[in-house]
């Protein structure tokens, strides 16, 4: 199979925080400050700047496919739940999850961008982690990144950081200390249990203990800040530093995303789910415009094909037709009359030899044929000399039995004075072709002069 890698652009990673967006790609990294309006959305100048910078950073050719952008969202507005579901068939799981979402979250699933990951499963129940954020938040970022030439996917930064932590059996938490806000995500049995945000200035050991039961705390954050926190909280908690490469455009979330991508680990992706009731029947024109256009083009092509065929192939068929007609003319002028002539010649040949053969085969010993006259119509006239009347009767009987003749009659039978002898005249007529049996000649007599075989001509 041919590899179309030149069409693809490498995956990029984006960490979207409250006030900073970090972009990391193979070609380099960028940090963009985020300016938000009162409702929390990005301002128009900020959006324009992001689109311009990211489009430049993406460096995508117009003929290349959009690059996949794996984005990590900070914990603002994120709802995280671990729920237990009954073990259901795979096809029924979306419906069950939908119901669970309606029960667990204050907003309807249609108003959320959400995703799930399986934590554990047995034959009876299934534990999953549900994560959700307002749909508008994800859609806003998705539109922005699409404008910049990316195909975005969203996950949680806290979950991305988890990929940096070593696998341990004990419960733990990950703390990302920002300049203004701190994010704390707790893991129980290696599964996310809760996600909390609080001001960084309130960050103390007591606050952390109040928000999580985990005794192991992984700390990440900007250069220097994380190390300082480890020192500060180390006396109260088992603090461990999440080592990440420093520099512009680097963060623990980005490092986690890269590691998960390289190691092909499953990410909890947040997606906008369509309403269950409308899932199967989305027939809006806009959604299927492209497919409908293709179908319409195909139909038009199908309708026009016969006409195009007749217009394009007519000369070819005409040439073939002329060629066949020429051949037919030649045949009709040469072969056909010859064939007819030969067939007629063959049918005109009377079966003289067959008739003589049948006569010879039917003639009894001692029969003497004085004269035979045969014409083309099949009338045969015989003059015979026999020793007694019985021979004539036998001869006649055999001729009739042969099935070759339609008419066998004895015209005259006259005794000859002197020796016991009779003269007779017979007339015969063979049956028309097709009605008389096919005469099969016996083999020629052997060269050793053996006795005359049956079917030898009568004595004349």
């Amino acid at each position, binding site marked *: 199979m041919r590899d179309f890698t030149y069409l693809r652009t490498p995956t990029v990673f984006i960490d979207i925080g409250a006030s900073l967006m970090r972009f990391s790609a193979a070609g380099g990294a960028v940090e963009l400050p985020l300016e938000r309006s009162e409702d929390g959305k990005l301002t128009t100048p900020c959006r324009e700047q992001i689109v311009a910078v990211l489009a430049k950073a993406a460096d995508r050719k117009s003929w290349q496919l959009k690059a996949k952008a794996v984005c990590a969202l900070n914990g603002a507005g994120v709802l995280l739940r671990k729920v237990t579901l009954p073990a259901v068939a795979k096809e029924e799981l979306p419906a069950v999850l939908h119901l669970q979402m309606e029960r667990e979250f204050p907003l309807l699933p249609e108003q959320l961008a959400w995703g799930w990951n399986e934590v554990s499963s047995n034959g009876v129940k299934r534990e999953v982690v549900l994560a959700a954020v307002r749909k508008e938040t994800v859609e806003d970022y998705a539109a922005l990144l699409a404008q910049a030439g990316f195909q975005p996917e969203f996950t949680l930064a806290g979950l991305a950081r988890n990929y940096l932590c070593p696998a341990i059996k004990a419960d733990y938490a990950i703390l990302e200390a920002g300049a203004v806000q701190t994010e704390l995500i707790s893991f129980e049995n290696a599964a996310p249990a809760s996600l909390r945000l609080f001001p960084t200035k309130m960050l103390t050991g007591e606050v952390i203990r109040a928000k999580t039961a985990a005794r192991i705390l992984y700390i990440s954050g900007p250069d220097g800040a994380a190390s300082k926190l480890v020192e500060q909280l180390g006396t109260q908690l088992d603090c461990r530093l999440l080592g990440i490469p420093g520099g512009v455009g680097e963060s623990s979330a980005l490092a986690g995303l890269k590691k998960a991508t390289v190691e092909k680990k499953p990410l909890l992706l947040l997606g906008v789910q369509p309403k269950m009731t409308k899932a199967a029947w989305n027939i809006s024109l806009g959604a299927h415009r492209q497919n409908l256009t293709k179908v319409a083009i195909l139909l038009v092509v199908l309708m026009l094909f*016969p*006409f195009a*065929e*007749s*217009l394009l*192939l*007519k000369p070819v*068929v*005409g040439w*073939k*037709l002329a060629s*066949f*007609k020429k*051949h*037919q003319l030649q*045949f*009709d*002028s040469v*072969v*056909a*009359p*010859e*064939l*007819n*002539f*030969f*067939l*007629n*010649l*063959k049918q*005109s*040949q*009377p079966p*003289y*030899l067959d008739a*003589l053969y049948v006569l010879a085969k039917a003639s009894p010993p001692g029969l*003497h*044929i*004085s*004269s*035979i*006259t*045969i*014409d*083309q119509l099949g009338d045969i006239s015989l003059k015979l000399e026999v020793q007694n009347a019985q021979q004539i009767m036998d001869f006649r009987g055999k001729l009739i039995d042969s099935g070759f003749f339609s008419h066998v009659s004895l015209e005259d039978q006259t005794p000859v004075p002197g020796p016991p002898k009779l003269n007779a005249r017979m007339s015969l007529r063979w049956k028309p072709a097709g009605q008389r049996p096919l005469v099969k000649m016996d083999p020629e007599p052997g060269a050793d002069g053996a006795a005359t075989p049956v079917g030898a*001509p009568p004595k*004349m």
Partner: protein
Amino acid sequence: MIPMRTLSDREKRTVRYGAIGVAIYLALFGGVRIVKFLNQRRADYVQAVTETSLLKSGVRSDTEQAAIVQKMMDDFQIDPGTLSTNSVVAGASAAIQKAILSGGMVLTSIRESPGRSSHKEIATIQFQGTGKVAGIISLVHRLPLLGYPIVIDSVQITADPLQPGMVKLMATVFVLDYQQWINEWKKPEASHA
């Protein structure tokens, strides 16, 4: 140049509707003509394809018939191309005499007369000969295979009382007129054409 009056909305709408109507009329009128033209071309094409298909299957049977002709030419040892009207009777007569003599028979008489044109015969040849039974049977067998379109009309075989073991043969054959046959074959085609 007189500046054009500004049209009111109603007038603009009227003009627009008129233009649309004219466009629809032209599209329908032209469309019908185009469809008719395309349908006619399609029908011609389908007819040509059907005719070609029939002729193609005919060519296959023609090939078989040509093989039959070849076999019959071999069987009768006749090449129709050599059957010229002027020489065919002479050739047939000579071939008959040669066959009689080569079969050990004695040719007593031979007579040629014009054939019946209604039966597409070019000549009738009557001959008499004397010989043994085997020679006569052989001659009867070989007559149609002499390389000429000969059909045996009648045969009379009589015992010769003066020469025991010998029989007399009196036969009438006619020679078919190949040219007449071909001409009559072509006539219906010509009239049909």
